[in-house]
């Protein structure tokens, strides 16, 4: 047990800190609460700047434009990003989930073709996993791909595809062999979203925005060289992407949560309750302290998981624990914000009286999605029950 940074970790932090101070955009606050469609070019430009400094994908191997950063260095990276309130990067799924999967499973030609575009945010990636009849039971998906003269012909429908509206490429899971058990007949294809036959329709979420899409695929031709990994080994490839989604992703959320809880503490000092600042209301103090403690525990759980993965060399079900913890914590935190803000909590970004440009009404609604996306809470509990505790599979 040694929570002091090693000399290498200090050097990494200091180098990034200096770079970030010199390069972080100063006007992010003006953009932060704008719809993603509007701020997207801004985020692309910011990612490009990070890439030029060699900071866009620190976890990636050096050969692919990363820094081969350890998990601890990644945690430091996100901590520094948060400290200076740096904007996020545009190609979140490409950098965080899909790039690492291509590095792990891709051919040299695929890596050469796709990695630079992911890093520079020239090509935005999305994840085509879920279907109307395959959500938690992902392996039941039906979108089919048939081989015809060095191409796969893809037909089917995907749903809930985040970034579909801006995506250039998609990691698409398809069924290549309907005759074998469901996990064994899947293949991952890298699909150009501009291909003929791809139709992207907006899906409006309960928050009012259209962060994700419905995607129809009709006779879409995908060249065989765009198979990622082996044919009919798509389940393993997809699971590797999901591990990234549930695992290291938590590290960047901690900072958002820390900012939110610190902001709530500031607000408690200003908001009035029963004729005094809410900061003096004993019940709100209790709730705020509980939330503060849980955000800190989320950070500690993450660091412990990172240490364990580093020493065992294999990411295990830690990601499920983190995913379960942060998604349910965020719902409690958002509810607390509502309680604190009283009638102001409901105000939308467009209302002149809204506090913090409406982030709390948005956050409250958005947090319902947290326990659904990236595997529902029930699915995470199944994973912990079966893979961690060794209980029999319940389904």
């Amino acid at each position, binding site marked *: 047990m040694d929570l002091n940074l090693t000399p290498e970790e200090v050097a990494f*932090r200091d180098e990034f800190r200096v770079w970030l101070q010199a390069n972080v955009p100063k006007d992010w606050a003006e953009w932060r609460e704008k719809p993603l469609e509007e701020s997207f070019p801004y985020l692309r430009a910011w990612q490009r700047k990070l890439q030029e400094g060699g900071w866009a994908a620190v976890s990636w191997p050096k050969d692919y434009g990363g820094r081969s950063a350890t998990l601890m260095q990644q945690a430091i990276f996100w901590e520094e990003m948060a400290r200076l309130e740096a904007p996020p990067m545009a190609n979140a799924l490409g950098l965080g989930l899909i790039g690492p999967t291509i590095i792990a499973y891709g051919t040299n030609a695929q890596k050469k073709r796709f990695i630079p575009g992911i890093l520079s945010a020239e090509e935005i990636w999305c994840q085509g996993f879920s279907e109307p009849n395959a959500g938690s039971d992902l392996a039941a998906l039906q979108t089919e791909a048939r081989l015809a003269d060095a191409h796969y012909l893809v037909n089917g429908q995907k749903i809930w595809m985040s970034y579909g509206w801006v995506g250039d490429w998609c990691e698409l899971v398809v069924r290549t062999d309907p005759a074998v058990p469901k996990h064994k007949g899947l293949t991952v294809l890298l699909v150009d979203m501009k291909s003929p036959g791809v139709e992207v329709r907006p899906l409006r979420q309960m928050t009012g925005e259209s962060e994700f899409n419905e995607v129809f695929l009709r006779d879409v031709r995908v060249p065989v060289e765009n198979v990622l990994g082996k044919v009919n080994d798509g389940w393993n490839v997809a699971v590797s992407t999901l591990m990234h989604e549930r695992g290291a992703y938590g590290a960047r959320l901690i900072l958002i949560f820390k900012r939110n809880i610190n902001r709530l503490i500031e607000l408690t000092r200003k908001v009035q309750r029963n004729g005094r600042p809410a900061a003096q209301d004993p019940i709100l*103090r209790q709730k705020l302290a509980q939330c*503060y403690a*849980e955000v*800190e525990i989320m950070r500690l759980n993450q*660091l412990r998981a990172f*240490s364990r993965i580093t020493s065992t060399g294999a990411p295990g079900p830690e990601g499920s624990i983190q995913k379960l913890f942060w998604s349910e914590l965020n719902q409690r935190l958002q509810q607390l914000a509502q309680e604190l803000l009283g009638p102001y909590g409901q105000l939308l970004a467009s209302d002149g009286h809204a506090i913090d440009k409406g982030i709390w009404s948005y956050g409250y609604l958005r947090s319902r999605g947290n326990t659904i996306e990236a595997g529902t809470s029930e699915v995470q509990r199944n994973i912990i029950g079966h893979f961690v505790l060794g209980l*029999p599979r319940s389904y």
Partner: protein
Amino acid sequence: MQFGLNESQEFLRDSARKFFAGECPMAEVRRLMETDTAFGANLWSKLAEQGYTGIIFPEEFGGVALGIFELILLMEEAGRALLPGPFFSTVVMAGTLLDALATTAQKRKYLAPICRGEARATVAFFEAEGSWDLADVRLTAANGELKGEKLFVPDAAIADWIIVVAQNGVFLVDSKASGVRVQPMLGMDLTRKLYSVRFDDVPGEKIGETAGLARPRAIATAALAAEMVGGMQRTLDLAVEYAKTRKQFGKPIGIFQAVQHQCADMYLETESARSAVYYAAWALQHHAPDAAAAVSIAKLYASDASRTVGNRGIQVHGGMGFTWENDLHLYYRRAKASETTFGDATFHRERLARLTIDAEVVSERGA
């Protein structure tokens, strides 16, 4: 950065686990809890032989001089074994207090025999209000003599010395002195006995000022939270084992999600409490600026979680979990007693609120 056990820490944990499995199996726990004091002289001398009674105290007083993190690992194992008797009161409460406040001469006289396993001590804090707030302490020493009553004093009947927290200082009293009256208080936890202690003009030796109590109390609070994590781990293990073997409707009950998800939540709560306790120990050891907050976070989380883990564990066991012969209720009783000891979750949330909401600037910290 390495947030986990190093090799020697793993060794300490494993050997403690082995020691307790051999010397303090559940049969021995049950035998001792049926006695008046829950004290086993034989077990005590074995604890001393292992160096556990002096684990964090300086070598010059016969201690082993390990760190707070090592103490936490030992307590976790003690909690898992439900170690009965005065280890917590003697080593963790009285020992750390003497170590922090006493003069060198006093440490030779009182701490050294504790390290050697020759003496036992306890700390008397609570009065009629049952409050962990120093401001609620009324008992005052006059001309070096104590008069008044303390409640909920652990293991007082087998302590050689009772360290009394008074309004105007911390005093050590010989438990055999005339004017000391020790009466059992019958608590839920059968493995750690409580007493009321009356002092009628009993001479006390001053150990230090109450201002010095913060650190030993923080260490004891973190150690208690660690012991609670051990109890949670054992409850989880029992529940998972039962869910795998007990069959209903022709299937192991663990296949039912209502059962399986209880187990998953127990795991999440146990691991989260453990993370918080490890960090608190590290922060205390290294005098980190957020050490006080870290201790409160650990205790508030462990206090709530050990109760819910216990609730779930009993539920998973069905009627079997409600029986005297099943061990779960022994852990459940300990968890309830520990929940309030050194302040429950509500108490520590308020403390944390003072450190965060009332602080001018929310403190920033590096990774």
